[in-house]
């Protein structure tokens, strides 16, 4: 199956975009939105999205098949990694979950359709309606597709015309999703545009930003600052800077048969999207003093990653990525030869996976692509001290703790500034109702009209 040339990103790579083309595309999107999207109800959108997601979960779904067939070459993710990623993302998009999201963020499923008053508001003779942006622009970072897919889903809810700008060569999975929308409903597809260019193209971005009511962006702090500086003052900007995540395993949890499951969960988090998302762990802190020493945990994790590689191979990486991994391994190999405080396990004759154990607890940025640090700590306070350099930038902590200690740990992490705590193994698989980096993803898109009766 070949994709029709429907979106700008479908054009052959030698085709160059001009500001005029973009201005026309923006105008068309807005007109189409007015005609085809604005009149639809939330309930209609819920059903549409849930049906679409159900399709993506079927083995014979043409777009899924295409993602799995061409994805490894176009994205670097191996087929099993893609499969797992697709199942986890689209498995979340059920009618029930979509409605729960609307209630959580807007207080009522019909809030985008009419003035409504849930009981709490009715008591005060109030009602309110939420309105989405007319024209929503997403600047996608392109490491993994989930944030872009989710942005598109939320934009469908708010009935916005949407333009997704992907990085050069990073539009494949967002494009497939957009094509599946178009295939299911041409008119909805006509309210979407996907394009790719290298970020910082001033003339193109000026057209786009002039048309936008709201811009969402994922990227480095410099990227976000550059975008912010170019936006008209009244354009809303929802910036998601890069975040890091880590795991924390308590001595209490790491006992008996449970230990094996925790190791498998850690391997899930390292393997999911090859560790490339902001929610993927760089480090797994393991508390000393339990049945399994942190070093032993590291060794078990290495053995598990070795088994995973046979089942879910990481896939090829470009030479510069392999060079980073190899160079870093070289450093740890030298350290390990000189001190028992460092140990390393890694795949042979490939860079597919690496586990570095260090007694030194200082948070370390992984070079990713299944390169994980395991670090020993006496307790959570030591781990948080060691991670002080990334305080305020931590998205997720994957936790493996005994039931009775989990709440206290989570409260400590919340006060320290962590946005999300989840079970280890689920780090890259947040629920639909997840508050992205601590902010309501749908709630941040809308503006309210309050009616005091």
């Amino acid at each position, binding site marked *: 199956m070949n994709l029709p040339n429907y979106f700008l990103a479908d054009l052959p790579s030698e085709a160059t975009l001009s500001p005029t083309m973009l201005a026309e595309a923006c105008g068309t999107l807005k007109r189409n939105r007015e005609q085809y999207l604005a009149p639809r109800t939330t309930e209609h959108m819920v059903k549409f999205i849930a049906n679409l997601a159900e399709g993506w979960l079927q083995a014979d779904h043409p777009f899924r098949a295409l993602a799995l067939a061409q994805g490894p070459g176009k994205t670097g993710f191996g087929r099993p990694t893609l499969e797992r990623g697709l199942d986890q993302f689209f498995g979340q998009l059920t009618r029930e979950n979509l409605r729960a999201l609307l209630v959580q963020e807007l207080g009522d499923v019909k809030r985008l359709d009419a003035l409504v008053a849930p009981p709490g508001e009715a008591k005060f003779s109030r009602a309110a309606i939420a309105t989405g942006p007319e024209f929503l622009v997403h600047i996608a*970072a*392109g*490491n993994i597709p989930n944030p872009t897919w989710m942005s598109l889903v939320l934009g469908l809810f708010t009935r916005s015309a949407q333009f997704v700008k992907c*990085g050069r060569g*990073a539009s494949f999975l967002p494009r497939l999703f957009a094509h599946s929308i178009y295939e299911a409903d041409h008119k909805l597809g006509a309210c979407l545009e996907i394009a790719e260019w290298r*970020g910082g193209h001033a003339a193109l971005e000026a057209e786009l930003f002039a048309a936008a009511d709201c811009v969402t962006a*994922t*990227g*480095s*702090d*410099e*990227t976000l600052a550059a975008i912010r500086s170019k936006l008209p003052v009244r354009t809303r900007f929802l910036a998601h*800077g*890069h975040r*890091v995540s880590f795991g924390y395993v308590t001595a209490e949890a790491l006992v008996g048969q449970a230990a094996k499951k925790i190791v498998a969960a850690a391997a899930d988090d390292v393997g999911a999207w090859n560790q*490339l998302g902001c929610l993927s762990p760089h480090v797994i802190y393991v508390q000393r003093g339990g049945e399994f020493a942190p070093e032993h945990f590291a060794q078990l994790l290495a053995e598990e990653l070795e088994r995973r590689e046979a089942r879910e191979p990481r896939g090829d*990486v470009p*030479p*510069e990525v*392999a*060079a*980073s*991994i*190899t*160079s*870093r391994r*070289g*450093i740890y*190999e*030298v*350290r*390990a*030869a*000189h001190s028992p405080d460092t140990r390393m396990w890694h795949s042979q*004759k*490939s*860079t597919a996976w690496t586990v570095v154990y260090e007694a030194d607890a*200082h*948070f*370390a*940025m992984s*070079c*990713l692509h299944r390169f994980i640090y395991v670090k020993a700590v006496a307790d959570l306070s030591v781990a948080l001290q060691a991670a002080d*350099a*990334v305080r305020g*930038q931590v998205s997720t902590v994957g936790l493996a703790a005994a039931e009775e200690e989990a709440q206290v740990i989570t409260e400590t992490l919340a006060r320290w500034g962590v946005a999300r705590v989840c079970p280890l193994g689920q780090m890259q698989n947040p629920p639909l109702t997840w508050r992205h980096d601590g902010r309501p993803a749908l709630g941040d898109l809308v503006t309210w009209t309050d009616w005091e009766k």
Partner: protein
Amino acid sequence: MTSDLSSFAARLREFIAASVPVAADARRLDSKAEDGAHFDQAKNEPPHVGGYAEKFNRLALELFNLQFANNSAYRIICEARRLTPLTVSHWSQIPAVPTAAFKELELTSLAPVERTRVFHSSGTTAQRPSRHFHHAESLAVYEASLWPWFAAHVAADVRRLNSSAAGLASGVEVDPGLLTSAATYRTVVLTPSPAQAPNSSLVHMFDFVRQELRADAGAFVGRLGAVGEWALDFDATLAALTPNGSRPLLVLGTAFSFVNLLDEMSAQSIRLELPTNSRVLETGGYKGRSRELPKAELHALITERFGVPASHIICEYGMSELSSQAYDAASLKSEGQSLKSGRAFRFPPWARVQIISPETGREVGEGETGLVRVFDLANVFSVLAIQTEDLAVRYGDGFELIGRAPYAEPRGCSLMAVGSSRA
């Protein structure tokens, strides 16, 4: 015993001296390589004939034995890899130490009291630098290695341009002394002086070249900036570069110093026309000290602002962890090579390079990309086998540099590094 290393150092210098005609005549050997008579690319055999390969192997293994015995930090690494003099039978199996290890370990056979000099890697002040320890004897080896290969690349051009005037027939070996006896060049060095940068191997190298070329210490027009960074005194630099008669100039500097200078010249609308036969040697990365330019663009700007053609621009590849340097020069390249920039680096015959696949750890094939690994016999008192973090494409026994492995070094808190990864 380090006396064994001293004896090795003496013999190595003889080996280098014997290799000099080969080195100086690299151009002629290149043309031999083209007809395939002496050059087997698949085996990464350099274009040196006779018993060279055997001799290199013998010397490398001997030096490995000595370093294994005398350099405990290195021995520990070798033992961890289960590679010892008993198991290593070819130079290519000698365990290579990552350059980053020079930051953490004292990779030297010199006792602390013997270390009279140390070369540091450049880089940001936040990082620990590499440390390569030297003493008089090791510096003598360094200089013995440095000069003939440097001279071969500068002299090759002198020969070509002056061949009729000097009465040299094509293919006649060049005496590197030609450079000095004629006092051919007026030398300008765009770095701080050795007094200001005593731990820079590059400045030491340039200073040695300066002395061989009999230029006075005023040749250094660089200075240290407010935070110890290398800067240029633009007025002094432009004064030094302004032609004075027809004597050609030899301008030595880092890529970033050239960029800063070219930017300043552009801002002041200054264009120089250096005398015919002038040459420019540029080296090193940028390390954030100026805007970064692709090599071809930098060379085009040098041509534009200095009037020096690309054929007269030489690139050097070296580092504090090595004692030999590689050069590329448009004037030395074989015809028909399909390099992107048309230029490949080559080390002298007493050093060998392998381009190693970062994925498999094996040497890559022709035209493929990998990490540069250097076996440098002139690293007598440290470690002869060095694994760099530089990515290069292999062309025969040479390579074209394409950049540094990103995020090779573990960092505690640099979110920027990840932020810019694939965004």
